[in-house]
């Protein structure tokens, strides 16, 4: 960090999102899916925070709750100092211009009945930012910036390939000049060669517009390439946050270690360690008590079964590493 620490662009504290499960004749609530269970993190302007985890860990839910596309059950979200959760719907709609989202599935993220030009320019029209000729010019410029010909504006999404559709989605997100974009598995559905194009595009846009990204992915290789810091989630909780290189070279949480050990690197000369994780990912409906990971952890201790691990910090400033694990608590 620089000498005077600037406040983070986005600050999340104790965020929770529980989904009710109703059963019975009158649809009474019987239990909760604790998709996101008390997570906290910061994102600075212009930086990329990677969010990784396996299915059911809550990373996609977290991304959507951040933008209030789903209403959180508890916690606070501060964007540029303003509490997002206290805003009325009109003010929220104005704020939405500054935070956008790019989706995973290029086939369902674009309205099949709208032309590309309308998809990209609709928000500009609705928010009264541009109309008429100026609107057309802006649409043309946006399409050009993401690598598509401006003449594509009158075509329909089904005429484009997956990679091109993803570019249209990026153009749509950029239209309102946001400061923060949630990339929800934005490259996971693309082939390797197209993935590289889109990753490069996202990096270039970040430099040009000083964008902050929350890059959600299950692909560790992509995340370590694009993210400055990475947060690892497991069954609704964050278990570790560290700079990307540190996370991959010296992970502290046993789950992170297992995840990295299991990640296949495209190099046959690098041998995998044998430390593979047994068992299945638990469901967020009835998470294990205490530390969520204790049922699969090779280093589980007695207290892991009952007590949720507190936060331990290592290092300072940009190299700060946060771990939630009993193995590392200072009293140990």
């Amino acid at each position, binding site marked *: 960090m620089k000498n005077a620490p600037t406040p983070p662009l986005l600050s999340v504290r104790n965020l929770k999102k529980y989904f009710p499960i109703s059963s019975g004749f009158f649809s009474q609530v019987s239990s909760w899916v604790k998709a996101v269970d008390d997570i906290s993190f910061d994102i600075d302007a212009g930086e990329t925070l990677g969010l990784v985890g396996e299915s059911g860990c809550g990373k996609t839910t977290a991304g*959507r709750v951040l933008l209030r596309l789903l209403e959180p059950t508890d916690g606070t979200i501060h964007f540029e100092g303003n509490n997002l959760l206290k805003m009325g719907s009109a003010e929220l709609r104005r704020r939405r211009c500054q935070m956008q989202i790019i989706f*995973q599935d290029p086939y369902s*993220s674009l*309205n*099949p009945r709208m032309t590309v030009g309308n998809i990209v320019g609709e928000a500009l029209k*609705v928010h009264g930012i541009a109309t008429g000729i100026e609107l057309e010019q802006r649409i043309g410029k946006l399409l050009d910036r993401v690598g598509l010909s401006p003449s594509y504006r009158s075509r329909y999404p089904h005429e484009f390939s997956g990679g091109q559709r993803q570019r249209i989605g990026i153009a749509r997100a950029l239209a309102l000049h946001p400061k923060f974009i949630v990339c929800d598995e934005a490259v996971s559905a693309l082939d390797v060669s197209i993935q590289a194009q889109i990753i490069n595009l996202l990096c270039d846009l970040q430099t040009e517009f000083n964008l902050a990204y929350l890059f959600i992915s299950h692909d560790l290789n992509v995340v370590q390439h694009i993210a400055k810091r990475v947060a690892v989630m497991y069954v609704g909780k964050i278990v570790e946050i560290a700079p990307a290189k540190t996370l991959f070279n010296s992970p502290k949480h046993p789950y992170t270690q297992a995840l990295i050990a299991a990640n296949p690197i495209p190099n046959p000369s690098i041998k995998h360690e044998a430390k593979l994780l047994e068992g299945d990912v638990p469901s967020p409906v009835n998470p294990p008590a205490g530390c969520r990971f204790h049922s699969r952890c090779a280093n589980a201790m007695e207290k892991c079964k009952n007590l949720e691990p507190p936060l331990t910090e290592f290092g300072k400033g940009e190299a700060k590493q946060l771990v939630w694990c009993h193995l590392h608590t200072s009293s140990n």
Partner: protein
Amino acid sequence: MEEQILMDEKNNLPAKLVLSETPFGEFWRIFQKDKLALLGLVTLFLLIIAALASKALTEWTVVFDPATVRLVDKFLPPLSYASELLPVEDIPRFGIYLLGTDELGRDVFARMLQGSFVSLSIGFVAVGISTFIGILLGGLAGFYGNVRFLFISVDTLIMRFTDVMLCFPTFFLILTVVALLPPSIYNIMIIIGITSWMGTTRFVRAEFLALREQDFVVAAKALGLPAWRIIFLHMVPNAIAPVLVSAIIGVASAILTESALSFLGFGVQPPYATWGNILADGKNFIFDAPWLFFIPGVAILVIVLAFNLVGEGMREALNPKLRRR
């Protein structure tokens, strides 16, 4: 269809294939492959022209006169010549009865023509009403489903109400209402309309529930678009396919219902002709003048078949579009 491979010179990114097709163009290309559906569409087209023309031809400038009673010429089979005993103004156009005459000597062709307008308008108006109600209720249930109203959610409220309506034997409900209200063509349209919206509601709700989770709807919300815009400009156009198919087949169903009502004597009253009441009158003379029964019967059959074929064709043509990858 021309093939052009579009290349973006600057970035060397070719657009995926070929034909630039609007959604309607694609729909038409698939629809016309089904020859039966195409035949149905042509039939409907001819019928609609006939129905629109009929108002002109039977009321404004009386080319074919459905009301003139000519007792001299009663029960004449199709393609018979008018009798010389008729006064000049009663002679039918071209001097022949194209489809014969009925028990009062009225020109069956003219009556069929008049009836076409009435039957079709009952069909379309009734379906219009039911579709409107269906989209409204289904849309509310699908979009605001989870909003709780007192102790019950909007979705549960609307769907249980729909279930209750479905439990009513619709036809008997219509009969009862028609028997109690003054008989008029408008009452019939309305009553058929407000008893057949249940299917549409279910379709629309199902489509909305699926659409709500689609990324492009979430994207619209993320862009800060107001709710009404998301519902009407983003969701409804994508949910409309099963509604259209259901509406087309619903018109056929409404025509059948009206015919049944008329057959039982509860439908549109004379002197208005509908195919149903021509059929009803004709049943008394089935052995003496079979054409009075079969002509309207076959006409109803053809029209219902045409609507169904078109509806099936539309279902085929609209489906792959929405499920396509």
